[in-house]
């Protein structure tokens, strides 16, 4: 087949020998990759409490760790900056990223099967933390371990924004902490100032008040605004739709959307449980009561005047609708501000968008005697350590966990790829404070005043519900809400159906 010189001297390998060698090599590679490639490996040098900080950071030099995370900016930023950690510790970290539902499945299989292929996990509070909390290592013994490096900013509740540590780290009990706040997505209102100003006169003539969004704007005002723009659009005016929501295929976003409305009006919650720690036995649900039926009716009313493609939109898709200039307002997670302010991809960039708190409840809609608040919710992504790993692996993983949530790292994330800080000390940095007004080099910081000074504070924030069946709860709720919004059932039927299914789910029927 190949050209061979006449006088060539070489040993010809027989076909059998070639196949034997090839087979052997393939087997060795396969076995080798299975043993080395999938898991984490550990190398340890003993250190004492009195050892230097450098020795403590380097005690696991030569080890390999695997971190499975969501494909959000902080993880990309950490991956870009990973050499700093490797230089500091000598530990090699493989960072794998994927969509949240995929991360949830992979992590779930790994944890529940007793394995530790993914030593470090992205612990998104409700979808991952609530169902798998018991499989994560308790970090509290490591916080005070003098043979491990520690973050000077500490890990107590005061080190993080209000409730962040509890949201992603505490499940069903106060004592055990399974994750440290790694990133966050807090809901707030994005709206087009330019479009609001251009249509203010017409709106005022129709509704008797100015077209503007403040912290006192209610959900009733949002319905008015959305109806105004829809009517104008249908009349042939060159305006976008007024409002849109995410009721697409990822069930959690639908649940969060209706939760904001429910909580804003009387601080209504699905169960009478502590939403900070959650409950393994939540008991009978409040779905089906007068308040829930009324709010479901209002939610449907709002959906009817929104952008018509709500049922196909998740967070990313809704943000694209806003970027494309097809809506004037959205309730979105503050991590998306960076993409809105990107002039290459967004028609809403260049100072056109303002960021505000979530809409407030409407007093006349409250039937349960509660107060009207700016119902806000969030998702806190923690970094947790697989409880199935050996003690040394857990300790090595801990060094990465505390490094990844350190002030410097969070600041780099914010500056580089648009991270969302969880440490108060980042918020206190002068450079960050300056970036909260335009012109800014950190667009996510434009949301910080609304988010960190208002949305996440009591009484506006709702953290839960944290229940072990969180994912099935999201799925049931989303399906019934979507059926209601697409006229397959009435709001009352939807609420009763949710009630029946949730009570059956929790054995409270």
């Amino acid at each position, binding site marked *: 087949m190949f050209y061979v010189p006449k006088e060539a001297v070489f040993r010809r390998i027989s076909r059998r020998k070639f196949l034997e060698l090839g087979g052997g090599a393939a087997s060795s590679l396969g076995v080798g990759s299975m043993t080395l490639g999938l898991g984490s490996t550990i190398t340890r040098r003993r250190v004492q409490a009195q050892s230097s900080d450098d020795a403590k950071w380097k005690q696991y030099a030569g080890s390999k760790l695997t971190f499975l995370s969501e494909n959000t900016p902080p993880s990309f930023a950490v991956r870009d900056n990973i050499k700093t950690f490797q230089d500091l510790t000598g530990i090699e970290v493989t960072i794998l990223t994927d969509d949240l539902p995929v991360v949830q499945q992979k992590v779930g299989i790994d944890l529940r099967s007793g394995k530790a292929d993914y030593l470090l996990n992205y612990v998104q509070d409700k979808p991952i933390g609530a169902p798998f909390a018991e499989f994560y290592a308790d970090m509290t013994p490591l916080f005070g371990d003098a043979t491990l490096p520690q973050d000077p900013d500490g890990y107590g509740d005061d080190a993080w924004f209000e409730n962040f540590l509890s949201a992603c780290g505490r499940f069903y009990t106060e004592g055990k902490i399974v994750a440290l706040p790694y990133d966050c997505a807090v809901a707030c209102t994005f709206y087009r100032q330019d479009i609001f100003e251009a249509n203010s006169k017409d709106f005022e003539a129709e509704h008797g008040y100015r077209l503007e969004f403040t912290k006192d704007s209610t959900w009733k005002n949002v319905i008015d605004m959305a109806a105004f723009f829809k009517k104008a659009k249908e009349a042939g005016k060159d305006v976008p739709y007024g409002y849109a929501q995410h009721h*697409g295929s990822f069930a959690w976003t639908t649940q969060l959307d209706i939760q904001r409305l429910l909580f804003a009006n009387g601080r209504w919650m699905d169960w009478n449980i502590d939403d900070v720690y959650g409950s393994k036995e939540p008991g009978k649900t409040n779905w089906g009561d007068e308040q829930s039926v009324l709010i479901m009716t209002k939610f449907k009313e709002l959906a009817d005047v929104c952008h018509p493609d709500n049922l196909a939109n998740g967070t990313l898709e809704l943000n694209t*609708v806003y970027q494309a200039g097809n809506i004037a307002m959205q309730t979105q997670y503050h991590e998306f501000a960076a993409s809105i302010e990107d002039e290459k991809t967004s028609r809403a960039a260049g100072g056109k968008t303002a960021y505000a708190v979530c809409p407030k409840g409407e007093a006349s809609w409250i039937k349960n005697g509660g107060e009207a608040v700016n119902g806000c919710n969030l998702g806190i992504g923690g970094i947790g350590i697989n409880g199935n790993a050996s003690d040394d692996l857990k300790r090595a993983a801990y060094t990465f966990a505390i490094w990844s949530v350190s002030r410097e790292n969070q600041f780099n994330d914010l500056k580089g790829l648009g991270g969302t800080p969880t440490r108060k000390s980042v918020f206190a940095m002068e450079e960050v404070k300056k970036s909260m007004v335009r012109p800014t080099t950190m667009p996510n910081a434009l949301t910080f005043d609304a988010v960190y000074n208002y949305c996440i504070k009591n009484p506006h924030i709702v953290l839960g519900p944290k229940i072990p069946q969180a994912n099935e709860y999201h799925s049931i709720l989303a399906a019934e809400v*979507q059926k209601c919004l697409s006229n397959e059932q009435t709001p009352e039927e939807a609420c009763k159906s949710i009630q029946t299914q949730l009570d059956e789910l929790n054995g409270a029927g």
Partner: protein
Amino acid sequence: MNSIAADRAKPGAGLFRVRQILDNVEAKPVSTALTWPATLNPAASKRYYFWLVAPAVALLAFISIYPFFWMIYMGLHDVEIGSVVWNDFANFTRLPSDSRYVGGWLLLFQYSAMCLALQIGIGVFLAVALNGLRHEKILVTMLLMPMMIAPLVAGMVWYFLYNGTFGWYHWLLQSVGILGPKSILGSPDTAMLAIVIIDVWQWTPLITLITLAGLKRVPQDQLEANMVDGASPFVNFISVTLPNLYPVLLIAIMLRFMDNFRFIDSALVLTGGGPGNATKILPIYLFEVSFKFFKLGRGAAIALTLLVVTIILGMILAKVFDRLHPKRT
């Protein structure tokens, strides 16, 4: 009458005349001449063959039979890490009252029926249109391209095409007035159609390919005889071509129906079972129960019912196939 003449007299034997003569002529000398030296090919015992195939059988058993029985075992228990608890068939007895399970079955039948009807109709039409064309091979190769794409990737591609903000197909359908601002995935009325279209786009070429192979063995003499009797091409197709295609079409139907019953990839990417439960066909619900809710016992019970129904329907199709295509003796 000699034996060849007697065979020719049997009904239907004319079609296979040439082959029968060859068989008869060639069989005699070959069967008498074939004697191997005993020393080179000693008669192998059954035990010898058993040991030859045993490793492969053991491997197959390990990767298919063991999980099958394990699935049955799980279906009868509540399965948690480190604990498997017998639950008095609760995983099975709860199924009839589970609206998502029952709905999943109905949607699965609806989805499979729509896919099969469209794929068979379009596939046969394309095969007939392509059969005998000058560039048949090139066109068939081009037609097969969708089949070479991983279903998950196909789902992603169509997801972007359907997108209400930047999707090219959405824009096209909106421009011609078929769709409004609501995208095809944004309504329970059209979402199922969206995933059916993808399956039809991806797997109709398989039906075309199988049908084309069937068309090549339609007896020309029957077609010619029918035409001599004055049949139009359409009548010829209905009365001669189609009956000859039944066996291959049944194989195609069986393949596609079994494939559709385990379908999940692109639907998961496109709709995740929504809006509402409009596209939550049973395999998607099974996936959710097992790998989202992590109720492995309940998931195993659902999987088992899916397997049993698939086998029963497969057997019914095989029976139909046997009736339409009895073994010739």
